[in-house]
């Protein structure tokens, strides 16, 4: 396996461990977040964005390259109406399942096998999007 792919796997493993140990994959924590019963998830998300933003500023300012010496190009997502409509639809699913996409994978690995239902349904949801994409407002 190439270095890049090995590193992607390792980043995934680290992310999975952090999601579990930080309770980010817990339905209970997501409920507390949406019910404003706990500041925990807001602090997690807020501090992750602060650290992510500072990291990107440093990478850009120093014009850093990847470990294999390639230019770093950050892919930017353009705006369309789907960001709003799709975002609201995803948010509804997030509140019901207690899991956004990363946590779905981590829940399965953690032994909450019921999350396989969420996972297969999410694949179905993505297929539904593929089916309806030409007709949806974007």
């Amino acid at each position, binding site marked *: 396996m190439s270095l*890049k*792919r090995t590193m*992607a*796997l390792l*980043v*995934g*493993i680290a992310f*999975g461990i*952090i999601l579990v*140990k930080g*309770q*980010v994959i*817990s339905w*209970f924590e997501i409920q507390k977040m*949406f*019910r404003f019963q706990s500041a925990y998830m807001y602090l997690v*998300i807020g501090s992750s964005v602060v650290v*992510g933003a500072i*990291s*990107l500023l*440093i990478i850009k300012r120093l014009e850093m390259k990847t*470990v294999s010496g*390639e230019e*770093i190009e950050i892919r*930017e*997502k*353009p*705006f369309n109406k789907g*960001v*709003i409509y*799709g*975002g*609201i*639809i*995803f*948010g*509804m699913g997030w*509140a*019901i399942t207690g899991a*956004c996409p990363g946590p*779905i994978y*981590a*829940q*399965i*690995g*953690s*032994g909450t096998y*019921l999350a396989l239902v*969420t996972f297969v*349904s*999410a*694949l*179905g*949801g*993505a297929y*539904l999007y*593929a089916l309806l*994409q*030409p007709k*949806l407002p974007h």
Partner: protein
Amino acid sequence: MWDKILQPWPWYITGPLIGLMVPSLLLFTGKTFGISGSFRRIDAICLPKSKLSYLRTDRWRDYIWQLLMVAGIVIGGYIGNHLLSAEPVPFLPESYYNTSGVIKLVIGGILVGFGTRYANGCTSGHTIMGLSNLRWPSLVATISFFIGGLFTTFVL
């Protein structure tokens, strides 16, 4: 130290570590952080003969790294809950382990898969990656996620 690792981690450890996923992935692989695209990849791989352009045009071979990353998340989920926890904890409530719970997860899962693809990103790609990159469409996306989640929690 080891005792602390085995307990749930505080936000000031969890949040910054999640933030560090962004530069780690960029510096080690040159890739932009995001998870929900993997649903499209998996659908495209499972349905190679699909005529739907969204699946047909998916260049999943360029995203093997993403599939490995999500496989890593599954492995990390196991390690985190079984090797790095005092005792494994459940992440879905008991009340979901029946027919109506499964129906909820099916509906919720479909909304997650459909919504993240429609929005072209999830909490990883928009909230963590997009906001870190100071992108306003990702702020709109994040606000939309919370509108949907709060509506479901308080109105439905």
